[in-house]
């Protein structure tokens, strides 16, 4: 039976009402009296030496307030990188300076060179066009292997090479892994590309800087997934503003998908310029600017090898990956191909030996950082593609080859430094095979063939590490931040609650889901609980939302704070009921004395806390407000199995998704409706990566896909029809180390679906007699047709 409320109920989202009526408050909706607007002049070449930036013609143009160039920012810090990776020789990564406005050189198309602040946006744009740039164009380096092999063109002259780091993991396993390959009965090798993507939240980034001269306080309104992180990075490392003089507000944010985690130049600029101009300064990204300034995602080139013994047991995995960093290190860029990728190379399998090599490379392209899944889709794609290829080479069922190698006992310590606390991979496999009606596939293939189409069935398993993570562990791995989360629970006198969380919702539905948890804990209606997030002025220091961490880490902090509330409320209740505290029980919103009919309502206790006339003042303070910081002891490990059936038109190479099924294990689920929505969205992005999306550069570093005319976003008719599409989360092995037993669901779809789709396409092509082992994404009609016809 569906629940009416609390954990497990599909409570309707309360935030929807404002979004559906145009009453949302997105950053671009914020206008401050007297604000000026900024237009950035961005580089239209990928690599060049700046000889001069002549602003003289622009200076006197109508409405111009002030024009800034790179020279204006020499006194402030560069954009900080939040994670330092140590290479296989124990040396720190190469870390170039990342200026707010380009100085000396430009290093990618879209890099801001100058900024015009003017009364209106149109005036700012007009004046920006009047700035005369003298830039000597240099050869650009775009291809990662060329960037490493050839030191003639360096993105950063002051670095020794274009190699950011050469990382080996686990270096101590390398010799044993190599030996396992020498002894292997079979080795399957695959070279592949994980295509560069652009996250493309529908709301472009916006920054509004404001400055109060009277109090010397700066405020930044920004489209961020983590306002406290921006406050810390920008305040401490860029502009030198202490936290108590800097407020960062991320109001309603229109999607993030990773690209709104990072601290961007435009945020620092608007904050800086507001003080310099003594008026608010606003920037709203155009979509074209977004394509050339939002951090991109993925962009790995990988060779993976899988070793098997004579019984088809996996004995070793060895990979070499080139990971594009772009021209500068975005906030968390170095961690993505390493700690969020290498650590996942065990997948769902008990492979005893794994060695991962990652070469992170600077190129004359937009910086690359986390995008939904962040490292884990790249790990899954390689592993699941090479397993599929191995099954074909060995002539065994790809399902059985996976099952044979599944990890079945938990906790399980992988050879790549993580410990899976719980899981049941056979259960999700069983479920997805049932949902996908694999037994009926042969008949459906025959029907497709009768129409002249090829039909393929793809299977894929995946594991992810979410809810990042223990601060002490990530500190050892190079993180320059903690990764706890916080919550303050404020109970008001009449019994209503406000949860102030450091977590942030940009579509995930915190305002609905978080109250469901507290409603269950106290036994009150969800409508008595309100969630506040997104403003450093009224929420405790938190690390924000990414890596599917909101409910697992932020939710846990809220549980801990609520437990403190309940503990104090019980003390008050025991006083009011004149009973021993140990006899007090909380149920259905009332405190009662065990074994008696004496009880006091939740609202009477909360009122007593704030009107403490009859109150144990000698023992406890008045008021009912508690804060908790929760630092998890491990990652969480959601896992799942996905299937896909495609039809391929041999005449055109067009691929259509005919059926899709997912079986995810997210542990306990707070709001099934929201969870399924997250999976739908993740799968759409994964299908987009597999079939449509590609961020493309030419050899000169020109960005060829800088609008929705050129970058193929998934549309409604690219996705599977409702009758043949099911997302399931009924297999639940609760997380063993957080209080809710939750694992996180935000990224699963984007991780699990790309290899599922490609495996299905390969199966379809093979069924038509085409000896195609692999297709790089996106599997566009042109690419598929070429694979069939060469």
């Amino acid at each position, binding site marked *: 039976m569906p629940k009416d409320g609390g954990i497990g109920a599909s409570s309707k989202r309360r935030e929807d009402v404002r979004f559906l*009526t145009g009453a949302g408050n997105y950053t671009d909706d914020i206008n401050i009296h007297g604000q000026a607007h900024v237009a950035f002049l961005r580089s239209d070449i990928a690599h060049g030496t700046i000889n001069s930036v002549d602003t003289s013609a622009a200076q006197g143009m109508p409405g111009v307030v002030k024009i800034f160039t790179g020279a204006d920012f020499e006194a402030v810090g560069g954009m900080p990188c939040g994670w330092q990776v140590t290479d296989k020789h124990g040396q720190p990564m190469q870390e170039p300076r990342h200026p707010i406005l380009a100085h000396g050189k430009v290093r990618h198309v879209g890099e801001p060179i100058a900024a015009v602040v003017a009364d209106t946006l149109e005036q700012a744009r007009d004046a920006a066009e009047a700035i005369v740039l003298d830039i000597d164009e240099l050869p650009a380096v775009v291809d990662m292997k060329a960037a490493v092999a050839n030191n003639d063109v360096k993105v950063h002259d002051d670095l020794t090479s274009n190699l950011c780091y050469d990382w080996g993991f686990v270096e101590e396993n390398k010799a044993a892994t190599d030996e396992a390959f020498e002894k292997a009965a079979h080795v399957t090798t695959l070279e592949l590309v994980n295509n560069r993507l652009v996250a493309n939240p529908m709301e472009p980034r916006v920054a509004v800087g404001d400055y109060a001269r009277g109090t010397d306080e700066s405020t930044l309104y920004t489209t961020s997934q983590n306002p406290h992180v921006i406050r810390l990075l920008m305040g401490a490392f860029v502009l030198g503003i202490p936290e108590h003089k800097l407020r960062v507000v991320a109001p309603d944010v229109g*999607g993030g998908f990773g690209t709104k985690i990072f601290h961007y130049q435009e945020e620092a600029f608007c904050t800086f310029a507001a003080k310099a101009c003594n008026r608010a300064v606003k920037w709203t990204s155009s979509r074209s600017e977004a394509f050339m300034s939002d951090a991109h995602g993925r962009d790995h080139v990988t060779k993976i090898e899988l070793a098997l013994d004579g019984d088809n047991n996996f004995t070793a995995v060895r990979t070499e990956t080139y990971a594009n960093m772009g021209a500068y290190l975005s906030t968390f860029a170095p961690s993505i191909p390493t700690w969020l990728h290498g650590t996942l190379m065990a997948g769902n399998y008990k492979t005893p030996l794994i060695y991962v090599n990652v070469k992170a490379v600077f190129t004359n392209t937009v910086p690359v950082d986390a995008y939904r899944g962040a490292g884990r889709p790249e790990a899954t794609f390689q592993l699941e593609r090479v397993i599929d290829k191995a099954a074909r080479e060995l002539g065994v069922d790809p399902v059985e080859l996976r099952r044979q190698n599944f990890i079945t006992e938990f906790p399980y310590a992988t050879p790549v430094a993580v410990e899976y606390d719980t899981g049941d991979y056979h259960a999700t496999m069983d479920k997805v095979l049932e949902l996908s009606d694999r037994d009926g596939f042969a008949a459906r293939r025959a029907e497709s063939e009768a129409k002249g189409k090829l039909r393929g069935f793809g299977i894929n398993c995946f594991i992810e590490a979410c809810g990042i993570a223990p601060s002490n562990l990530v500190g050892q791995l190079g993180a320059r931040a903690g990764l706890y989360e916080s919550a303050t629970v404020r109970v008001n006198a009449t019994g209503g609650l406000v949860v102030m969380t450091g977590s942030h919702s940009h579509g995930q539905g915190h305002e609905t889901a978080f109250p469901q948890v507290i409603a269950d804990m106290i036994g009150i209606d969800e409508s008595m609980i309100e969630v506040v997030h997104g403003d450093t002025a009224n929420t405790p220091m938190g690390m924000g939302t990414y890596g599917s961490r909101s409910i697992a880490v932020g939710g846990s902090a809220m549980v801990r704070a609520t437990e403190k509330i309940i503990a104090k409320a019980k003390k008050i209740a025991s006083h009011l009921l004149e009973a021993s505290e140990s006899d007090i029980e909380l149920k259905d919103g009332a405190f009662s004395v065990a074994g008696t009919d004496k009880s006091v309502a939740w609202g009477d206790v909360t009122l007593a806390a704030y009107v403490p006339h009859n109150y144990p003042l000698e023992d406890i303070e008045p008021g009912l407000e508690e804060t908790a910081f929760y630092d998890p002891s491990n990652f969480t490990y959601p896992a799942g199995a996905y299937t896909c059936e495609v039809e391929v038109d041999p005449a055109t190479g067009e691929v259509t998704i005919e059926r899709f099924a997912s079986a995810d294990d997210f542990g306990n689920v707070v709001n099934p409706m929201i969870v399924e929505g997250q999976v739908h969205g993740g799968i759409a992005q994964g299908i987009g990566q597999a079939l449509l999306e590609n961020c493309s550069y030419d050899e000169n570093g020109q960005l060829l896909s800088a609008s929705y005319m050129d970058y193929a976003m998934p549309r409604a008719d690219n996705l599977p029809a409702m009758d043949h599409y099911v997302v399931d989360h009924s297999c639940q092995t609760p997380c063993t180390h957080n209080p809710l037993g939750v694992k996180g669901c935000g990224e699963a779809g984007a991780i699990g679906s790309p290899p599922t789709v490609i495996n299905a396409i390969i199966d379809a092509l093979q069924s038509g007699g085409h000896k195609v082992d692999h297709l790089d994404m996106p599997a566009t009609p042109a690419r598929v047709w070429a694979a069939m016809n060469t």
Partner: protein
Amino acid sequence: MTKIEMTVNGRAASGEVEGRTLLSSFLRDELKLTGTHVGCDTSQCGACVVHVDGEAVKACTMLAVEAAGSEVTTVEGMANADGSLSVIQQAFQDHHGLQCGFCTPGMVMSAAALLKENPKPSEAEVRDYLEGNICRCTGYHNIVKAIMAASGQEVAPVAAE
């Protein structure tokens, strides 16, 4: 600058605009109707869809002066007279047809235009009609469901429980 007048959500509205001012800018900046969103520069994403004289129009692609004298409806004008959600808006909430909410105003306006011209669309017709509306969050599944439900057609329950 040109003075223009139009009816927006049933009320008279006027303002001074430049020739290059887009209808989306006029609605957002002059009339402070910030429900109409701008998500791209190329008339692709549909976050800015409004109705002009009953037709669905991308407000980022129409000059404000072109809309002078017209009846314009934005998402702010879509609720029932008593302020409750309209059938389409309610269906979006009931079927979780939105997440971050940014594309939502355009989706609601496009859905209303579709159901006006095709009151019982098939699933394929809904998907085809949404060709000009991009959503990055939902994967469209629940948007399609919401529109089908708003048209009075049977759809699967909101979540497998």
